[in-house]
């Protein structure tokens, strides 16, 4: 449009054209170092540094020898890098009578987390699917109790569960803890899957029914393949949640089967012996490694997971 007008004016006279060209034209000049940007990026970088410092401190401490720790400060980089503390934390650090390091806790946590994640997600996804597509009378009442239950402090329910597990002979075993994790993961996971399956167009479900598919056929052949992203979200949510759990681990397992978090706490906060800060920090990083790895690998899905877990859908 502007071009046509300009061309028209050319026919009339040159002056108006010159007038137009003297004003602002083309791309607006951008100032990279505006005051706003300096403030914005300055603040963000400062805050980011604050968030990163603890990680940095953990790493450098774990790479120093004890003499160096006693002399220097915790922020200085190691003069002599040693992996001794890592080896000790993993293989020989003592908790009570066991002196085989965190490795025992690590494998316990693996043995707890893997079945808990599979079991809790299998149960919750079928639940969510039933709630979204096969509403039966009373289903919503149970679901409401479940969601309200998510707000009840765990402390209210831990002892009754101790009794229930003792009754079925699973108290103190890994499988008992798997059940506990499935129970307490159920509200949020069921909500997650229910909301997802509700968002799947109902006509798809109807089409499958007209095609003659039943409850399980629709779940396995139609819904499951479609819900893969939400399964990944749920898996991320559960791995980090269960790996990081401390309370249930300390209540429902015995020292032999303690998960990594409990064992870490026992190593670091044990009153006996000389404190070996470098070993403690190496152990701490080791314990945080699995969820950190999940976090950095999953990226956006992790954010989606916590947002889905936190906000209703």
């Amino acid at each position: 449009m502007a071009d046509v007008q300009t061309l028209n004016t050319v026919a009339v006279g040159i002056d108006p054209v010159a007038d137009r060209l003297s004003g602002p034209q083309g791309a607006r000049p951008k100032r990279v170092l505006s005051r706003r940007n300096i403030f914005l990026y300055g603040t963000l970088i400062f805050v980011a540094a604050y968030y990163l410092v603890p990680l940095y401190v953990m790493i450098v401490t774990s790479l120093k020898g004890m003499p160096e720790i006693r002399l220097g400060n915790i922020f200085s980089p190691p003069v002599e890098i040693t992996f001794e503390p890592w080896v000790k934390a993993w293989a020989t650090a003592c908790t009570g009578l066991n002196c085989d390091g965190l490795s025992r806790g690590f494998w316990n946590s693996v043995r707890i987390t893997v079945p808990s994640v599979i079991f809790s997600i299998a149960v919750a996804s079928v639940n969510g699917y039933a709630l979204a597509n096969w509403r039966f009378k009373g289903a919503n009442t149970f679901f409401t109790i479940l969601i309200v239950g998510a707000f009840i402090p765990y402390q209210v329910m831990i002892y009754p569960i101790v009794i229930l597990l003792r009754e079925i002979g699973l108290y103190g075993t890994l499988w008992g803890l798997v059940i506990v994790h499935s129970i307490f993961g159920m509200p949020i996971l069921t909500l997650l899957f229910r909301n997802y399956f509700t968002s799947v167009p109902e006509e798809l479900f109807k089409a499958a029914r007209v095609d003659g598919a039943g409850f399980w056929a629709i779940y396995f052949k139609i819904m499951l393949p479609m819900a893969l992203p939400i399964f990944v979200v749920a898996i991320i949510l559960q791995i980090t949640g269960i790996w990081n759990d401390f309370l249930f681990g300390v209540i429902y397992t015995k020292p032999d089967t303690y998960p990594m978090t409990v064992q870490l706490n026992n190593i670091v906060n044990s009153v006996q012996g000389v404190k070996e800060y470098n070993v403690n920090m190496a152990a701490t990083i080791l314990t945080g490694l699995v969820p950190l790895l999940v976090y950095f690998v999953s990226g956006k899905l992790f954010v989606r997971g916590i947002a889905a877990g936190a906000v209703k859908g």
Partner: protein
Amino acid sequence: MTSVSIRDLSLKFGALEVLKSLSIDIEDGEFLVLLGPSGCGKSTLLNCIAGLLDISGGQIFIKGRNVTWEEPKDRGIGMVFQSYALYPQMTVKGNLSFGLKTARVPRDEIARKVARTAEVLQIEPLLDRKPSQLSGGQRQRVAIGRALVRDVDVFLFDEPLSNLDAKLRAELRVEIKRLHQKLRNTMIYVTHDQIEALTLADRIAVMRSGAIQQLDTPHEIYNRPVNLYVAGFMGSPGMNFISGEIDGGDSPAFRFAGQSIDLSTYPASAPIKSGPGIFGIRPEHIVSGDAASVEPYQATVEIDVVEPMGADTLVWAMLDGSEFRFRVDGQTGMRVGDHVRIGFDPARASVFDTATELRL
């Protein structure tokens, strides 16, 4: 022979009565359109016929068999949905064969049926694609194929063209009509688009808040709507309505604001009685200019708004205080403020009783 028969069907959600004791008999090979605005219960009725919703009362027969409590798959129906509802993770072939596989049809028979359906709908080149790789029109063709492949007696269409743009809609409309002429299956088709209804249907059932207002051929429904609602719903632009008084007796007439329309040629179903009434005339039944001079009723109006629509032009005018639309040829150069002569034949009009809203 009756293909689908619905007896006193009713559906309640708690206290809410969604469908009110409906009865319809659909002939074998008939194309029935359920027409109405959203929320009138037309889709709900279709879901009840499909068995996707449990009804509260009444019976449903398909091919003489009582299927009221049957599962959807056992009713001998195929269904096409508005959102296509194709299984996203399966190929077109997978979509077409899913129902057959579930019914444990032998593998070679599945292949044969899929191939034949693909040929009928001309979707053979698409068979190995995923739904996400198809255009809207192709998707709906596959969705129709999924219903077709199962060799059913009755096809149910739930607003199948509403998600398509206007051009594709017109194309697929013709294709569905052609398909029906070729297969001669019973089809029940839900839509809110009256053009689709008029072009496709053998019979139309106009619905409103869970009840059928009129069940008749498109011609009858267009020309002789049974009540004010059907008259207003059918036709675009809608019928003109003028409120006034009816004079009964030997020379019946409709009076409003000093004007009088002679109703002696009006094809009333019963002798006309006096009382308040509503006079309805379709915009396309009004002529203007020189042609108006031969019509039984004539008047002069001032033009208010002109809406050119290409082939023809819609003109809004005032007739003694009543707003009034009529259709003229697209080439007519009418302007706002012009005074024009219009005329129409009251025999083509519809007159309604104000109180009952029923056609006289």
